[in-house]
């Protein structure tokens, strides 16, 4: 009766499906494989395409170190250690990562502080002009901020704000998507709950932060994911407003800079940098996979 046990049943169609999906997965994973593999290998292994996934990890001579007048024996380095230490030494990668954190976190917090009250008012308060404001939000939803980068850049340049944190943050402080998403979510919160809070003696402002915010955590998570992913990975906007001042580089800019002056020796460290930049979000994703996909889904359902 073994063929009645579903767990061990062989099914042709399921096998074909798995085959297709595995093939797709291999293609999807290819660049990740290349990235991690190169970040572990020595320059010679990269150039000759040898060494398998991990590389042989045979110490090689760091020419730059020799040039500095050190003894050759002191300059022998293990490839993966060399790649990752160089990633941090060659460029102020820690600084870039810190900038990335500062920018994404500030953007998210300001977006929430601006969007939440507005979403609450649009969802739950009756006032003259509410429909107009909401129509405006819907219209602004059509405008991709990247598309209007040029006039924004001109405006920031006129204000003398290019090459500042403000330039990286200010254009993203208003998230109409956030307003829309939170408004839709707040619409589902029962009016009774808000009335109960009013009866309990809460003011409107404290209702937002003490009643609406805690109930809206799932929607807020969704929005956080969107916001953080978009701005941690954003390359276009920092590329435009940060010119030259490395102190303000975000991780993608740092990586790009690395590429600009990469010669053969630096492929390994460059891949190590890429790994370091990509990993935080992927790690967060691995930890909270369900939340992430839920979040994307929730935000997708306009």
């Amino acid at each position, binding site marked *: 009766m073994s063929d009645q046990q579903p767990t061990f049943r062989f099914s042709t169609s399921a096998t074909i499906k798995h085959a297709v999906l595995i093939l797709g997965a291999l293609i999807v994973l290819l660049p990740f494989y290349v990235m991690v593999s190169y970040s572990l290998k020595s320059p010679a292994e990269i150039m000759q395409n040898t060494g398998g996934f991990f590389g042989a990890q045979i110490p090689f001579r760091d020419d730059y170190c020799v040039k500095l007048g050190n003894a050759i024996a002191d300059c022998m380095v293990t490839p993966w250690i060399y790649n990752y230490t160089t990633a941090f030494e060659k460029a102020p990668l820690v600084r870039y990562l810190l900038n990335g954190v500062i920018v994404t976190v500030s953007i998210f917090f300001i977006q929430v502080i601006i969007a939440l009250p507005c979403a609450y008012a649009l969802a739950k308060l009756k006032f003259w002009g509410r429909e107009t404001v909401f129509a405006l939000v819907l219209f602004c939803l059509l405008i991709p901020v990247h598309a209007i980068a040029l006039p924004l850049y001109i405006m920031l340049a006129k204000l003398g704000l290019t090459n500042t944190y403000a330039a990286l943050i200010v254009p993203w402080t208003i998230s109409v998507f956030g307003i829309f998403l939170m408004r839709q979510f707040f619409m589902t919160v029962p009016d*009774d709950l808000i*009335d*109960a809070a009013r*009866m*309990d*003696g*809460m003011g409107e402002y404290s209702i937002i932060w003490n009643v609406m915010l*805690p109930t809206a955590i799932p929607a807020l998570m969704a929005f956080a994911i969107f916001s953080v992913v978009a701005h941690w990975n954003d390359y276009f906007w920092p590329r435009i407003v940060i010119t030259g001042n490395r102190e303000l580089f975000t991780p993608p800019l740092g990586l790009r800079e690395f590429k600009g002056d990469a010669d053969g020796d630096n492929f390994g460290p460059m891949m190590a940098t890429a790994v370091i930049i990509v990993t935080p979000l992927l790690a967060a994703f691995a930890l909270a996979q369900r939340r992430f996909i839920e979040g994307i889904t929730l935000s997708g359902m306009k």
Partner: protein
Amino acid sequence: MSNIRLNTITKKFGTTDVLKGVDLDIDDKEFVTLVGPSGCGKSTLLRILAGLEQPDEGQVIIDGKNVTSMRPADRNLSMVFQSYALYPHLTIRQNMMTPLKLRDLSTSQRLPLIGPFLARKEYKELFSQVDRTAKILKITELLDRKPGQLSGGQRQRAALGRAMVRNPLAFLMDEPLSNLDAALRVHMRAELTQLHQRLGATFVYVTHDQAEALTMSDRMAVMMHGKILQYGSPEDIYQNPANVEVAKFIGSPAINILSASVNDYAQICIQNLILDLFAPTQEPNITIGARPEHLTFCDDNPTALTGFVQHIENLGADLYYHVKIKDEQRPLIVRSAAGNGKRHQIDDLVHVKFDLNSTLAFAADGTRLQTHRKLMDELAS
């Protein structure tokens, strides 16, 4: 001494008149029910009393003080909502603490972590208040759970607890039982009535369920189309409805309404049947109402209506016969105790007699007509 007065309250939403000049007096410690079909404005009236809605005109007076423009939190009323409106992210204890904290503690004392430390004594007092209330409602073991982990009935109690914990001037309840299943609803009716007696507080209760209104209230106000049609004790409203709408709304199964006429001698006639009942009116066309328990089966006689049994509802103790009368659209519903005499079958020919002392008459515009067993002339002489 809390005495609540609503003075000529009007309210419009857009162009629809929701309340058209409503007056209501509620005595101290009274259980008053606002009952009416959905959309009659009863909830809006309650929300105006609570301060959640502003009336367009009229005043809300509590204890002789005009509170019309006062914020809800300052009126010291508490409210139980239909959906219970418990804060989903807080435990039941925290839910019950919230109104106390907001009322009795200063901003600094409310700070998380530091607050309880600064005001240990006050917090202790609040905790014991919560515990006392929880004990009364028998929800002590639920205090550390969150609303999502409770059943409907438990949530209902928790919501009551949040309302009770701070000794308000009056309890406002907006259809608090309508989300419960039927058995629990009946049980909670009794419990709420007992709670009302025990607390000795004023209750203002909104419901669309006439049974709740009849069983629980000291006085009930029947509302329709933004007006109070009648305000009085349940007995009075059941037996003496002010008009046909009230009569139809209160009572289940609904009152039987028949079209009738008044002849030159002021006698009420149904079809070709002349009742021994007089109505002082000039209008020839009226309606009469007779509740199912005021109709009885009898032998064929000139004061009885004749028809066929169309359907029988067996409720165990009582049987409700649906009797099809010729030329009447709706069947007459006749109540008969189950153990009472002969059981009729479907399609049986039956004769139905009115209890003339309880039969109601209404003018064409729906207002109640006084009826007499004797002709006016005879009364006068």
